[in-house]
């Protein structure tokens, strides 16, 4: 516990955080990419076709992890936003702001691939089903957070405003999660239930999905660290360690 608090304390110092990010960034990127390529190849060529949907179900290996990430990143954004609002921790503000574009990307992927999956299976690209609509709202909420943070000059104020919006927008996450149970419309219920243990995907099809879920999280870690580094550099541009980093002589 003590070591953990110490670690968080040290991460609060921008140069330490920058060095930490620089060290781990490539690992996250390459492990994520390799795992994704491996899992997608497996999913595309080495899993059996579905008994009902045939080949089109392979979209699942992209659609489902992306949808998970869309919600996961929003939750991370809101939680770190809460930490930023209450304890005024700079790093939490940065994490919250840097998450928004990544989450928006994953949500966009989930919507686009879901639409492509819907055409051959449901017979339509888009229906105003509860799950689809609430996911579209999630994308708009991401846009709102990004727009708000861009519109405010002062970085720290922008971060706090965006954090508050993320917290308010958090009500949408349970709506997405439970929409398939509350409204019996077109989108089917979840297939993977890690907590309840009655997953309804055949084991031969499940592994690539779980690997993709890990791969997307690794990529998120990479992208988050990179974006956070950029923000740290912008915030600290006057400091000595940044000058040294930029390759200019420190002015002493």
């Amino acid at each position, binding site marked *: 516990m003590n070591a953990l608090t110490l670690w968080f304390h040290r991460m609060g110092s921008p140069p330490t955080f920058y060095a930490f990010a620089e060290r781990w960034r490539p690992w996250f990127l390459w492990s994520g990419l390799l795992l994704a390529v491996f899992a997608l190849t497996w999913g595309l060529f080495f899993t059996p076709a579905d008994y009902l949907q045939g080949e089109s179900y392979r979209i699942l290996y992209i659609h489902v992890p992306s949808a998970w990430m869309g919600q996961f990143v929003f939750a991370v954004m809101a939680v770190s936003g809460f930490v930023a609002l209450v304890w005024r921790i700079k790093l939490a503000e940065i994490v919250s702001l840097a998450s928004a574009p990544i989450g928006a990307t994953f949500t966009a992927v989930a919507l686009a691939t879901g639409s492509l999956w819907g055409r051959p299976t449901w017979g339509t690209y888009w229906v105003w089903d509860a799950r689809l609509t*609430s996911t579209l*709202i999630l994308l708009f909420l991401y846009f709102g957070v990004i727009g708000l943070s861009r519109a405010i000059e002062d970085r720290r104020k922008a971060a*706090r405003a965006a954090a*508050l*919006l993320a*917290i308010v*927008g958090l009500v949408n996450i349970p709506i997405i999660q439970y929409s398939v149970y509350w409204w019996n419309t077109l989108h089917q219920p979840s297939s993977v239930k890690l907590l309840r243990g009655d997953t309804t995907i055949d084991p031969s099809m499940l592994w690539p999905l779980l690997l993709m879920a890990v791969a997307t999280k690794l990529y998120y870690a990479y992208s988050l660290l990179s974006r956070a580094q950029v923000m740290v550099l912008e915030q600290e541009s006057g400091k000595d360690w940044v000058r040294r980093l930029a390759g200019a002589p420190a002015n002493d």
Partner: protein
Amino acid sequence: MSLLVAPTALLQHDLTLAWRRRAEAVNPLLFALMVTALFPLALGPEANQLARIAGGVAWVTVLLANLLSLDVLFRGDLEDGSLDQWLVSGQSLPLLAGARLLAHWLATGLPLTLAAPLLASMLGLPEDAALTLLAALALGTPVVSMVGGTCAALTAAMPRAGILLALLVLPLMVPVLVFGAGAVEATLTGLSPLPALLWLASGLALALPLTPLACAAAIRISAQ
């Protein structure tokens, strides 16, 4: 109770102000009526077709009318320093924010709700559906005022926040829109509007205590 003295005074002040500027205050109502009148003109006066989409049309116009009046909810007070006074006054900021949100609903949401029968008859809704629309608006417009007001407090420091405000408010309003229009639609197709109305009431119960807190936090961010 001493806690409520300042918020009540603020509410009175806001309502007096709204009454003095009543020509300005009816603008959202006029806007809603005019937009509603555009639909029969654009779609042709077929009563059947109009009635089918009436719930959605009424809700969208009410939402947009509300949005028009939200932009200036906190801006004036921020510019003349009143919000700073709220912060240093030692009064409960959530209660003050709540009073302001309530004043906005009384000045904008309530008239729009009361206009529901008029909107319904313009769109050719049968009586039972008009009643559902009234109930749905009564439950939904307070949520619109409260959540919209919170977003308005966030954007108060920006000189031209109109579009951004819409971008923030509208996604958050989609559940209200879905259930509000869903209640009317259900009545039209012979189903019970009760579940949709219950969801709206549930959202209202959640928003009543939470939005003043969020709004207070937003005011703190904007006023600093």
